[in-house]
């Protein structure tokens, strides 16, 4: 383990940017604000690459750990949390793609947010978010990671509610924060349990000021030596599940995914950065970081896999039925996050992280592309009012197409390799009980198919077909009216009238260049992680080998380690499954193309279009009862009667006592004499009792 001085600048540059912009940025020009914001993140990016490639990779494979200790933050008894950072292969991977993607999104945002009020505020928040995210990734103990965890939640709230004059944005921001907090409660309980049983919350063994601090994972592992294994496994399960609750909230899995679609009320670069590439992946990162705990609890792994698989499938079914382009991408993100958790639950942590890696490229690309479309269409977001944009926005089209092919799992694109790796590991997982591996694989394959279908739908509806935003296109106007029924016709006529003046235009350079960069990575980014089963070991899986020392190996149900046993024997199985995924991916595209080309305004089932009424159910089950309890009980009874009663009662008591004591002052000497006698009797009595003892 070596020390480095580079981690602090990486993390604090965006904070400095946020501070500068927040304090002085109000009256600066857009160019200056954009330059400062992008340059701080750019410096972080460059330093990150330097750190990883020049400093980390030169270390031997099992000693790749760089740390930097800033100061001792909390030291209370045996509890210790330092403000210290570390870089190991897992955080290196996260660091690289987070900073890189964030940089290009910052550049894009300088174009997207052009002309907005509060331009400086946006970039200040965005930089603040980067600071928090980097703290989360590079923290070396649970508490500092939690600081970053909460911080990204805060910045998410600030950025979703950026258009604070819109009620929908404010509500969405509050919803995101509150649902996140529900998950955080579980996370904090998990960390407390870890401290209770391990006595430390550090991720690594280290020595600070002469005192040695053990890694919490090592300590938890040592529990097996002394105690009943059943109890230890139960403890691990409890810890793992509680931590996973936090991941459910942060990474929008069932049942706490409801905030992510609403979060689309924020500006599109926010959706791209926070809700596609970085914040939502924090949950997956945390699960991978805690893999030593998860691998010791088969129950927890199972829960993670099932939740991930179910979320993937559910979200994909909803995504097919959405009309807002950003909502389609939001549910797609939820679905892909489900894939990542499925991978982790099945034991393929490196596959899950690989999918995080590739997903960040193509999902950010898709969101930025959607942003480009939205700006080009003068803030139109509804797919029903797009169409035929290919000839107006070619650069956007070709880059979005790369992302489309990547997410659909077309062979040789990045998404293909990562998704296929996940599916293979799910099927052949030996840490899931026996039929579930195959069951979840089926769910994953179905999701892959649906993904290809709904992404094709999005591309077809946006870029191909009739230009439905032009009302003088008879078919367009009639189709729109017929598809919606009469109650919406007024709104659609308004919009059609507005769109009449509309000519879509291509976006400026500071918006299409990031698209191109991300498109290149969507195509090529997967080539460093090609599964070795496919190529028979001819091309090394650099990604997996890099990550190996940082992630624990899953334990099979039978209790043995699953090293490379399955690689050797089921080489053919892997090839077969890969072929199947390729067919599903391409087939999905073809199905989507042929179906939606002719029926762009196909009305999906209302159950799906209304997202299974999840928000309404939650409202009935949780929100309404809480509101009524708050009003009826807490306000009217508790606050008015008990608390106000206590306060008023105290005053009443004092004045009552005064009224009683007033009676002593009568002015009659005889009464005073009687009182003196009474007092004397009491005192004599007291001494007599003492005499008796």
């Amino acid at each position, binding site marked *: 383990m070596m020390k480095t001085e580079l981690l602090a600048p990486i993390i604090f540059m965006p904070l400095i940017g946020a501070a500068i912009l927040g304090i002085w940025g109000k009256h600066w020009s857009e160019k200056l604000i954009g330059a400062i914001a992008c340059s701080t993140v750019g410096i972080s990016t460059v330093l990150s690459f330097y750190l990883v490639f020049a400093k980390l990779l030169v270390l031997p494979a099992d000693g790749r750990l760089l740390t930097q200790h800033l100061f001792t933050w909390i030291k209370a008894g045996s509890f210790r949390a330092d403000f210290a950072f570390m870089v190991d292969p897992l955080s290196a991977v996260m660091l690289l793609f987070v900073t890189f993607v964030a940089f290009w999104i910052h550049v894009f945002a300088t174009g997207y947010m052009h002309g907005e009020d509060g331009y400086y505020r946006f970039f200040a928040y965005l930089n603040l978010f980067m600071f928090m995210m980097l703290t989360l990734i590079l923290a070396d103990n649970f508490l500092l990671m939690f600081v970053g965890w909460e911080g990204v939640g805060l910045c998410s709230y600030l950025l979703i509610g950026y258009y604070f004059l819109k009620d929908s944005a404010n509500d969405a921001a509050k919803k995101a924060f509150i649902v996140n907090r529900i998950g955080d409660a579980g996370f904090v309980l998990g960390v407390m349990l870890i401290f209770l049983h391990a006595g430390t919350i550090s991720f690594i063994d280290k020595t600070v000021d002469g005192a040695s601090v053990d890694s919490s994972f090592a300590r938890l592992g040592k529990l097996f030596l002394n105690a009943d294994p059943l109890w230890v496994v139960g403890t691990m399960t409890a810890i793992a599940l509680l931590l996973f609750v936090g991941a459910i909230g942060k990474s929008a899995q069932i049942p706490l995914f409801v905030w992510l679609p609403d979060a689309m009320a924020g500006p599109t670069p926010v959706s791209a950065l926070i809700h596609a590439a970085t914040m939502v992946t924090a949950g997956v990162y945390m699960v991978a970081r805690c893999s030593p705990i998860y691998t010791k609890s088969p129950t927890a792994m199972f829960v993670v896999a099932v939740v991930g698989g179910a979320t993937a499938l559910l979200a994909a079914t909803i995504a097919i039925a959405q009309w807002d382009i950003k909502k389609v991408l939001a549910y797609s993100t939820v679905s892909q996050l489900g894939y990542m958790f499925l991978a982790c639950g099945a034991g393929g942590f490196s596959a899950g992280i690989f999918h995080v890696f590739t997903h960040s490229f193509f999902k950010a690309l898709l969101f930025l592309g959607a942003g480009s479309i939205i700006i080009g269409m003068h803030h139109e977001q509804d797919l029903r009012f797009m169409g035929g944009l290919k000839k107006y926005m070619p650069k956007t089209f070709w880059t979005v197409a790369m992302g489309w092919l990547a997410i659909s799992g077309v062979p040789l694109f990045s998404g293909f390799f990562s998704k296929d790796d996940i599916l293979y590991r799910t099927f052949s997982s030996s840490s899931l009980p026996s039929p579930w591996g195959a069951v979840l694989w089926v769910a994953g394959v179905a999701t892959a198919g649906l993904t290809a279908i709904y992404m094709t739908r999005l591309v077809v509806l946006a870029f191909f077909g009739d230009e439905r935003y032009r009302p003088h296109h008879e078919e367009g106007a009639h189709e729109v009216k017929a598809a919606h029924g009469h109650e919406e016709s007024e709104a659609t006529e308004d919009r059609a009238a507005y769109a009449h003046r509309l000519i879509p235009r291509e976006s400026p350079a500071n918006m299409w260049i990031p698209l191109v960069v991300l498109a290149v990575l969507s195509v090529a980014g997967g080539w460093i992680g090609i599964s070795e089963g496919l190529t028979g070991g001819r091309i090394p899986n650099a990604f997996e080998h890099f990550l190996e020392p940082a992630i624990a190996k899953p334990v099979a149900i039978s209790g043995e380690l699953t090293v490379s046993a399955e690689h050797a024997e089921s080489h053919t199985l892997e090839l077969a499954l890969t072929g199947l995924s390729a067919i599903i991916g391409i087939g999905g595209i073809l199905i989507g193309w042929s179906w939606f080309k002719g029926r762009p305004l196909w009305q999906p089932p209302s159950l799906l279009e209304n997202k299974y009424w999840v928000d309404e159910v939650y409202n009935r089950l949780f929100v309404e009862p809480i509101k009524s309890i708050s009003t009826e009980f807490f306000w009217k009874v508790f606050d008015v009667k008990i608390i106000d009663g206590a306060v008023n009662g105290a005053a009443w008591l004092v004045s009552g006592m005064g009224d009683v004591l007033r009676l002593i002052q*009568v002015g*009659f000497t*005889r*009464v005073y004499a*009687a009182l003196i*006698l*009474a007092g004397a*009797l009491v005192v*004599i*009595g007291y001494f*007599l009792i003492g*005499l008796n003892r």
Partner: protein
Amino acid sequence: MEKALFLILAAVCAVAALNVVLQRNPLYSALSLIATLCSLAAIFITLQAQFIAAIQVVVYAGAIMVLFVFVIMLLNVTTAERTIDRHRYLKFLAIPFAGLLITEVFYVITRFPQAQMPTGAIGTTESIGVYLFNQYLLPFEVTSILILMAMVGAMVLARREEKGK
């Protein structure tokens, strides 16, 4: 024999004391008080404190009570008018308070160790005089100053204010 004597004297004393409180006319109370004082003097004699008994009769009953009677006659205090007593409850409190006080004191008394019999050697005038003028000379002299002050005070307080002002 001595017990019987004591009981008779104690009974007289207690009944007279009770009468002091129970009489409404202060003159009758004063007379009862004189009876109490005289029976107390007799009890002193049974305790072989002859000197004290003598001065009890001479000073207390003979001087102080006479003063009381003079003042009562001077102020012409008759039976108290039937004014409305706003604190009648005090009369009813008297019994419990009295009972409580008696109980507490009896509680102590019954635990008292038995002492030796009175010898009578110290009650004589001669022995008191010896102590008074040797060890306790200072209190004796101070007492005389006290009496002087009392005289002056009484004269000042009771003087009529008609002259001058």
